């Protein structure tokens, strides 16, 4: 159980391990983007960890990185194709960041550090925990950015939080706003002592 929860707060991949920053900053301009990305990420992370854990004894040490890469890339391509076919609107928005899941440091990092050395059940929990930690982080960031940057939050056509201001802080959905949001969130976490040694 601890394997699962550590990925969410204490060892949160984004705020603590500082992995997987690229998609975090790029696609958090809207909450719905973050939700789809989370789903895609989990789709790659969990099966990859499971498979790699299953076959870990058969893969020689020297070729383990390329082998892991191919396995992860396979799942990444699958979700890429599925999104292209069934959610074309999101395919446009998320763009190259779906294929980039394969080089997302979180996936590669956790697989190499954990799944390749541990039994399947634990590996799946670890992957799921990290995946949910990632998802939670990007959803939180996107809520902040969309709310402050657009003035409302709209998910899949449903207005979740209605517009409350005529002049939102536009910079929040632009690059500087992305960096700013994460920086401040980490600072707040540090202040509250939730993260150590960042």
């Amino acid at each position, binding site marked *: 159980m601890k394997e699962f929860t550590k990925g969410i707060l204490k060892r949160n991949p984004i705020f603590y391990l*500082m992995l997987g920053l690229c998609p975090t900053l790029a696609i958090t301009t809207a909450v719905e983007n973050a939700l789809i990305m989370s789903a895609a990420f989990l789709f790659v992370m969990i099966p990859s960890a499971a498979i790699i854990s299953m076959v870990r004894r058969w893969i020689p040490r020297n070729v383990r990185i390329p082998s892991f890469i191919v396995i992860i890339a396979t799942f990444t391509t699958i979700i890429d194709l599925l999104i292209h076919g069934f959610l074309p609107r999101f395919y446009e928005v998320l763009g190259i960041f779906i294929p*980039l899941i394969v080089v*997302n*440091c979180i996936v590669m990092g956790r697989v190499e550090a954990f799944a390749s050395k541990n039994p399947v059940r634990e590996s799946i929990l670890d992957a799921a925990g990290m995946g949910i930690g990632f998802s939670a982080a990007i959803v939180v960031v996107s809520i902040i950015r969309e709310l402050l940057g657009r003035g409302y939050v709209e998910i899949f056509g449903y207005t979740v939080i209605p517009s409350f201001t005529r002049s939102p802080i536009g910079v929040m959905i632009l*690059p500087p706003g992305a960096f700013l949001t994460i920086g401040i969130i*980490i600072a707040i976490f540090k202040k509250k002592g939730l993260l150590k040694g960042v």
Partner: protein
Amino acid sequence: MENLLAIAVGMILVNNIVLTRFLGLCSFFGVSRRIRDALGMGIAVTFVMTCSAAITWFVYEYLLVPAGIQYMRIVVFILVIASFVQMVEVIVRKKAPSLYRAMGIYLPLITTNCAILGVVLINTEVERYSFVASTVSGFSAGIGYALAILLMAGIKERLEIAEIPESFRESPIGFIIAALLAMVFMGFGGMV
């Protein structure tokens, strides 16, 4: 239509791959503490990016497209990049040990650097550049990355003697700097 200078300026300034396109961030925050490290990383990235752009263009045009298996691009590109980096590491370690000691440690980090795969995907999918344009794009992207990381390192070195609030030290201040840099680079918009 393919203005090489526009592509270069675009990648370096207007759409800086780090500060505007959000690629290569993990290494950006990780390896930007000393100007020396940043320089080494910048050079390594530029080199790998240029060559990767060139090689993957060939692979895409002459292998993936004719066979109709573009959907294999993710697997193939990442393998190409990983093999290339591996090869370079081996060669540098044998032929130029001093160079290896200075720069070699960055090479394995570069394989999973999303900037490399990102730029390659942009070249082949988003913009569909020709061979020359792809290589120029790759080179410029590397320069853009080096520029961003050097700026960051330079500022961080200065900050060491500054008084920063406790909770902002180490990571958060890095992001604030990045935010300011991103704002600066936004000013380049419209140049192309």
